């Protein structure tokens, strides 16, 4: 008896949708990514077990290891910090200013920064690294 074997069809996996998924993922990450704007600033943040993760604020002030002050990633002398922060706060409903200071900075450098920000009416968010207890 002769049995006719069915011809096997070659398996074809539709791969066009894979490219669509890949592009959708790429677009999602491009839209939602928030890049580090202050990569050029050298600083080592202080560590403490008493801090928690917090929401990122729109205004950022940084005092780096060389004692240079940066407002929104741009150099800013301490004499004009108060006015600069006041102007930025006018555009924001949230009065929080993220303050990042190098751990070895001395009080004679960071003291005037605290006072200027306090006078500008900012709510200070002191940023550091969480240390495990």
């Amino acid at each position: 008896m002769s049995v006719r074997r069915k011809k096997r069809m070659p398996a074809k996996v539709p791969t066009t949708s894979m490219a669509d998924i890949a592009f959708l993922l790429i677009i999602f990450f491009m839209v939602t990514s928030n890049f580090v704007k202050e990569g050029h600033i050298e600083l080592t943040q202080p560590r403490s077990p008493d801090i928690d993760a917090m929401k990122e604020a729109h205004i950022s002030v940084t005092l780096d290891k060389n004692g240079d002050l940066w407002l929104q990633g741009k150099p800013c002398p301490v004499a004009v910090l108060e006015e600069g922060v006041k102007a930025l706060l006018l555009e924001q409903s949230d009065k929080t200013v993220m303050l990042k200071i190098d751990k070895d900075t001395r009080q004679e450098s960071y003291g005037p920064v605290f006072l200027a920000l306090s006078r500008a009416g900012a709510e200070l968010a002191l940023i550091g690294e969480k240390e495990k207890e």
Partner: protein
Amino acid sequence: MPLPKPKPLFEPELSSFSDIALLLIIFFILTTTFIVPAGNKIEPPAASADPSNAEEKQLTIALTGQEILYGPRAERLSIEELRAALLEQNFRAKPPSRRIVIVNPTPDVPYELYFDVVMAIHRADGILALIEEDEKPRK
């Protein structure tokens, strides 16, 4: 005149491109670490640099170099002892005016120590007061 035979269409194999793209995406999803800022929010009221203006009820912490001098008797404490001493104050049960802690650092105090002390005050529900050092009046 006979028409020339149409050339067969060149169809490059594109399915491997999407594989590479997906592999790259998976690699970056797995290896990316997001920077989440860690810190605490403080809303400091200003205090006068003149110690005679400070109320007796307000707690004062003096910082000199690497030393923490706590309270009116200027007891020398480590950061762990300070944390315990601040928790003993039970600020949570007190009104805001009795929760103010004045931190008075000397010019040589590193930010690392100041940050540790401020965070310990925040953890104990104290309110940090900034020292006004210059003559500029507050608006």
